[in-house]
C-alpha cells in the first residue's frame, strides 16, 4: 500500500509538472483488488484551487487473482491501478470535450496537437 501511494504520488507530481500535489484515497470496490480505492487529486495541480478531481482507481491485487495466475497469494502481493488516458489529457491540457478526441478534425488537431519533435523526457521536460 505504501509503495502504491508513493508511486501514484510521484506519478501525479511528474505528470502535472508540479512540486506538490494533494491526494485523497477513498475506499471503493473493484472485484480484482482488495482493498480498493479511488484517488482524487487537489485541483491546485491544474490551477483550480479548492476542488477535488477523481483521476483513477487502484488497490492491492485480490488474492483470488494472484491464485488464478498460478501464484501463491501467501507468498506474493501486488498493487494495480487503472487510469483513463483521455481523462488525464483533458485535465492536463484543458481540453473541454472528450468527443473531439475521436472526431478526427484537422483544425482541432492543429490547435491541440503537439510537434513531432517535442519528445517528452524527464530531464528535458514532459511538455512544452
Amino acid at each position, binding site marked *: 500500500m505504501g509503495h502504491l501511494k508513493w508511486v501514484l504520488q510521484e506519478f501525479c507530481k511528474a505528470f502535472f509538472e508540479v512540486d506538490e500535489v494533494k491526494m485523497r484515497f477513498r475506499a471503493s470496490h473493484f472485484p480484482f483488488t482488495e482493498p480498493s480505492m479511488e484517488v482524487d487529486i487537489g485541483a491546485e495541480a491544474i490551477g483550480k484551487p479548492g476542488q477535488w478531481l477523481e483521476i483513477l482507481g487502484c488497490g492491492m491485487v485480490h488474492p483470488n*487473482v494472484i491464485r488464478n495466475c498460478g501464484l501463491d497469494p501467501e507468498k506474493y502481493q501486488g498493487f494495480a*491501478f487503472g487510469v483513463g*488516458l483521455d481523462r488525464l489529457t483533458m485535465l492536463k*491540457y484543458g481540453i473541454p470535450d472528450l468527443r473531439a478526441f475521436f472526431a478526427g478534425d484537422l483544425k482541432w488537431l492543429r490547435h491541440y*496537437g503537439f510537434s513531432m519533435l517535442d519528445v*517528452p523526457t524527464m530531464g528535458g521536460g514532459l511538455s512544452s
Partner: protein
Amino acid sequence: MSNDLTTLESELLAEIAGAGDLAAIEAVRVASLGKKGRVSDLMSKLGALPNEEKKAFGQAVNTLKARVTEALDARKAVLETAALDARLKTERADVTLPVRQGPQAEGRIHPVSQVLDEVIEIFADMGFAVAEGPDIETDEMNFDKLNIPAEHPARQDHDTFYFSPKADGSRLLLRTHTSPVQIRTMVSTKPPIRIIAPGRVYRMRQRPDAHADVPSDRRSRDRRDHAHGALEVGAAGILQSLLRGR
C-alpha cells in the same frame, strides 16, 4: 380572369428565365410564391368570388403555382450546377506543384498520444516496463481470472462487445480494460513484475441524443443521460501493476 392568370404566368416564367444567379431566383420566388407574392395574392381573392367560379379559379391558380414552382426549381438547379462548375474551375488545385515547406506540411501528434508518451516516460523512470496484449480477449482473461463473477453487470451484453458464440459456447470479446494484459504477464513471467499496460479498451455506452440509432464512434462519458442504444469504441486505459515476493 383566366387572361390575367395567363399573363401573370408568362411574366413570371420570363422573370425566372432571366434570373442570373441564385439570389435573383430567390427574389423571384418571394415575389411570386412568398406570403405576399403575386400568386398568393390571387389565392386571397378566392374568398370574394361567387361560389360557382371558386372551383375553376382555385384550380387555375394551383396549376399556375405548380408551373411556377417547377420552373423555379429547374432554373435553380441549372444555376447551382453553373455555380459549382465556376467554383471548381477557380479552385482547381495544381497537383504538380511541389510540396509546401514549413509548419503546414508537418503533422501533429494527437494529445492522447502525447500524454501516453509522457506517462510511459514517467513510469519508465520508476522502472516499469510496457506490456501489451490483444484487443480481442476471452471471457476467461477479461473477467473470470480477474475475480469478476458471471453475474456481474459488466459482463452483460449491453456493457461489453461480444463476438458471436463459437460452437462450444464460448465467446470472444473486445477487452473492457487492460487488466487481462496484467493476467497474461503474471501467468507467463516470474515475479517480480513491474509493468504498465497502456492500450485501447472497448465499452458499450449509450448516446444521449435519442434519435441516433446508428453505431457511432462518438461517445459520451455522461452516464446519466442514456436515452438510446448505440455503440462506442475508444478510450485508452493504462493499468499498472507491481508484483513482488512478500
